[in-house]
Each structure stands twice: as structure tokens, then as C-alpha cells.
């Protein structure tokens, strides 16, 4: 039982990463009917930006010029990195997606792949092939709760992720921007005729998705402090699977699917040899899709209208 709870804690943390990245895929898909395949690499860029910001703040703090406690550095790192990474997303939208919005789907789909490769190699050129390590920022404290070992970082990662997911949910449900996003998800023609600038909304969607990916990148860096330029690929693909599994453009779905995938992976690894983890985990997910081809919250038909 203790073993189970130990893995549950790990699964929650792992699921947080998937869910946070899956949200970005899902949001972009819902309004543009396109998957932004560069999103995994935006997660990577976010982690690196977080690394840069955190390192700078730590250095600044150590120099005595601006002595900040670790938690304050973490908060500042998250906020600044979200801000900076959102621009990466907006540039990707402007350069890669807007000019191709009416292009054949396949062309628009590969722009993401190409931009992803550009971001990876760009990072290699900029920082070289070495791996970098994320500064620890906060001291690790381990609590023993009835035999289950929980670190303060794991708790923090799960809570911060849930906090941002809730904030996103409120944003989408309760603000004029969120409403415009929801409307745009179903119709491209009517929405501008109601006075809503669709380019602005598309840009905003990319910005928010990228900012969330940056948070995921920083939290990942806290838990697994070694970053490399290709870290976004596998994560990106898995989060993409989560976005589909959650159902078309559903925030709730992407969140649940992200956590579910974390659970499946961790619990498969608990029972089977870890080399078989992904093979078995993704067989299970494939099986779920066979029975629910539209994902958890997807709809069995598409009603996108176009003139």
C-alpha cells in the first residue's frame, strides 16, 4: 500500500508535466484545427529560458547586490520565463502559422515540425552540445508520511500545475478573450463579423500555451535538473497523445489525459521492467482510443464551418 502511494505521488508529478504541455496543444488545436508540432520544443525553450533567468537571478543574489530568498527567485523565474516564452509562441504563430492558415493542412502541419527542428538546432548553436543543469533554487525537504516519502518539490510542482490549470479554466470561461477563443473553435467566418479580431485571439492562444509550457519546463528543471536541447521531443509527443486522448480542444480533457498518462506510465513501471514501460503504457492508451476514438471529451462529429 505504501508502495502504491509512493507511486501515486510520482505519477501526479509526472502527469503535471504532461498535462501542462498538453494544454498548449489542445488550445491551439481547438482554435486553428492544427497541431503545433513545435510545442514540445517550446517546452524545451521554456526550460532553457527558465534556466537562464534562474541562473542570472542566483548570480545576482550571490553577488549580494540583490539578496533574494530561493522561493522568491523561483517565483520571479516562473513569471519572467512565462513572459519571455510567450513571445516565442507569438513569433511561431506569426511566422509559421498565420501565413499558412488557408494552406493545405499538411503544409501547415509540417511548419511546426520544421520550427521545432530550428529551435533545437538553434539552441545547439547558441549553447553548444553540453547539457546544462538547472539551479536547485529551493532546498529539498523530504517528508515521511506513513512510510511514503514526499518531497516539498513534488508537492509544489503538483500544486503550481493545478493552480495554473485552474487559472486557465477561469480565463477561458470568464473573460471576453476566453469566450472569443471558444467561439473561434467552431467558426472562423462568423467570429470576425461579431467584431472579434481572430489574429489577436490566435496570437494570444499561442502566447498562453507557450507560457504554460515554460512553467512545465521550469518545474521539470526543478525535478530533473539536467536539460538538453532534445528534451522536448519525447515530452512533446507524449503530451500530444494526451491532448488527443483528452478530446478535441478540451482543457478538462487534456488535463485529465495528462494525469492519466502519468499514472499509466508510472504504474506500468511499478509492475513490469522499466524497459517495457512505454511499450505497455502506450498499448494501453491505444486500447483506450480504440474504444473512445474521440477521446474523453471529444465530440463524435466535427461542425467546423467555412465559407
Amino acid at each position, binding site marked *: 500500500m505504501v508502495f502504491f502511494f509512493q507511486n501515486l505521488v510520482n505519477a501526479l508529478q509526472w502527469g503535471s508535466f504532461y498535462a501542462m504541455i498538453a494544454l498548449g496543444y489542445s488550445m491551439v488545436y481547438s482554435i486553428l484545427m492544427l497541431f503545433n508540432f513545435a510545442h514540445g520544443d517550446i517546452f524545451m525553450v521554456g526550460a532553457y529560458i527558465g534556466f537562464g533567468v534562474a541562473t542570472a537571478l542566483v548570480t545576482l543574489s550571490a553577488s549580494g547586490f540583490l539578496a533574494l530568498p530561493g522561493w522568491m527567485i523561483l517565483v520571479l523565474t516562473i513569471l519572467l520565463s512565462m513572459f519571455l516564452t510567450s513571445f516565442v509562441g507569438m513569433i511561431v504563430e506569426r511566422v509559421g502559422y498565420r501565413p499558412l492558415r488557408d494552406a493545405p493542412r499538411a503544409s501547415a502541419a509540417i511548419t511546426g515540425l520544421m520550427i521545432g527542428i530550428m529551435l533545437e538546432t538553434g539552441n545547439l548553436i547558441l549553447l553548444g552540445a553540453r547539457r546544462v543543469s538547472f539551479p536547485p533554487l529551493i532546498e529539498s525537504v523530504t517528508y515521511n508520511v506513513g512510510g511514503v516519502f514526499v518531497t516539498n518539490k513534488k508537492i509544489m510542482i503538483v500544486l503550481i500545475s493545478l493552480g495554473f490549470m485552474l487559472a486557465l479554466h477561469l480565463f477561458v470561461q470568464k473573460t*471576453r478573450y476566453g469566450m472569443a477563443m471558444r467561439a473561434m473553435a467552431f467558426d472562423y467566418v462568423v467570429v470576425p463579423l461579431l467584431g472579434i479580431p481572430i489574429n489577436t485571439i490566435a496570437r494570444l492562444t499561442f502566447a498562453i500555451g507557450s507560457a504554460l509550457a515554460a512553467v512545465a519546463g521550469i518545474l521539470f528543471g526543478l525535478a530533473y535538473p539536467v536539460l538538453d536541447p532534445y528534451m522536448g521531443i519525447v515530452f512533446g509527443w507524449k503530451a500530444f497523445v494526451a491532448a488527443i486522448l483528452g478530446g478535441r480542444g478540451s482543457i478538462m480533457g487534456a488535463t485529465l489525459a495528462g494525469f492519466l498518462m502519468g499514472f499509466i506510465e508510472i504504474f506500468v513501471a511499478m509492475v513490469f521492467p522499466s524497459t517495457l514501460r512505454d511499450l505497455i503504457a502506450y498499448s494501453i492508451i491505444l486500447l483506450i482510443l480504440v474504444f473512445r476514438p474521440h477521446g474523453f471529451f471529444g465530440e463524435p462529429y466535427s461542425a467546423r464551418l467555412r465559407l
Partner: protein
Amino acid sequence: MALLEIRHMTHYFGGLRAVHDYNLDIEPGQVRGLIGPNGAGKTTIFNLITGIHRPGEGRILLDGEELVGRQPHEIAARGLGRTFQDLRLWRHMTVLDHVKMARYSKIGYGLVGAFFSTPRRNREEAQIEEKARELLEMMNISHLADQMVPNLPYGAQRRVEMARALSTEPKILFLDEPTAGMNPEELIQMMGIIRRVREQLGLAIFLIEHRLKMVMELCEIIQTLVFGEVIAEGPPDDIKNNPAVIEAYLGKEIVE
């Protein structure tokens, strides 16, 4: 100067001349009609004015300001609201959400307000809700506010669409066949609503319609469009008795 002024608007789709030398003046509070056989180019004219297509030639002035070349959302925000022949509603949103959403361009709070839920956002969102409910009241569908649109009868869906168009606070409301597919009872109700909208909100209305009885009763001036050209323009009685119109379009109806 008229509220909306269109001069020499001409548009081609490939080699096909869809609209030729179209002119229009709409005065504040005026109700105008556009009739013509299927394929005459009526909806195209709406699409050209509201910015879905950019006219090849001609000028469109709203309050003296050029609209040609502007984005559809800018044109809508400046005061042109419209409905569609085929209802374009969102099946995943409630009636109230439809109407609230359309106020986007009338709201001032920005991203900071949205992210941090400032007092200004809260105040404005409350106003949006109040305005939206007023419009639903005017359309007699306030009891359906929280329903999802696909659950509503057709006549009610038409009213949702009208409320949504009004929610953008247009100076001119463009109605593309507002009674298409309606039964006689729904038709009478819709005419009542159009009259009420005009009286209470004082806005101009430009409508495309196939039901001549309705156009003749509601409109002050009617244009008849055939193959993209206006062949007659005038008050209902003139249109009714115009030989060219009778030949092109009205023939059978008049005999009846």
C-alpha cells in the same frame, strides 16, 4: 450624407461578374429591402459590405469613413451587425454566451484585467451580462438563456442569432433571409420582432428576403437585383408595379 453610402461597387469571382455598379444609401433608422431571384448576388453584396470579400471596385462609406480594405472585425466593430441565411450558431455554447460573446468589441478591459480579475473587468462583465439579458428579453427568449442552442426550436434559434447581431451594437443591422424556413406563425412573430428592434433601438435595417409580403410590409425602399445589377429601386408600391421587376421576379405572385 447618408449613414451608409455605397458607390459603384463591382465585384468579379474569377471571370463571373457577381455584382455590377451597385449603389446604396441608407439613412439612420431606415428599413431597406433587397430582393431578387436565387443567385442574383444578394448575399454577395452583404459579404462585400461586411468585409468577407473585398470589392474589386467601388467605395463603401459608413459615417463618411471608408470600409473597403478593412478587416471584417473592424467593420463589425464600427457598426455593421449581421445574421446569416444558414444559422451560424455554436452548439457548444449557451444562448446567453452567444450574446455576451458578441460584445467583445464594446468591452474595454485588457489582458491585465482578464488575468487578474480587476474591478474594471468585474464591472464590465456584469454590464455585459445585463445587456445580454436585456436583448434576450427583447427577443422574448430570456427564459432560454441557459439552454444550449441545438435544443431550441428553429424560430428561437433565429432570435438568438438576431440577439447576437444586436449585441455588437450595430448602427445598421443586416438580415439575410431572417424568415427562411419559418412557418407562418414564426414569420408573424419575426416581423413583430424586426419592428420592435427598429422602434426601440432606432437602428437602420437592411434585409434580404424571399417573402415578398414581408418585404413590402416592412421596407420603405426596396431594390431588385437581377444578375448582380439593380434593375429597380423604390417604395414598395413602385416595385410592385414595375414591369421589369414583374418580368424578372414577381410575375407569378402578382397574378395570384
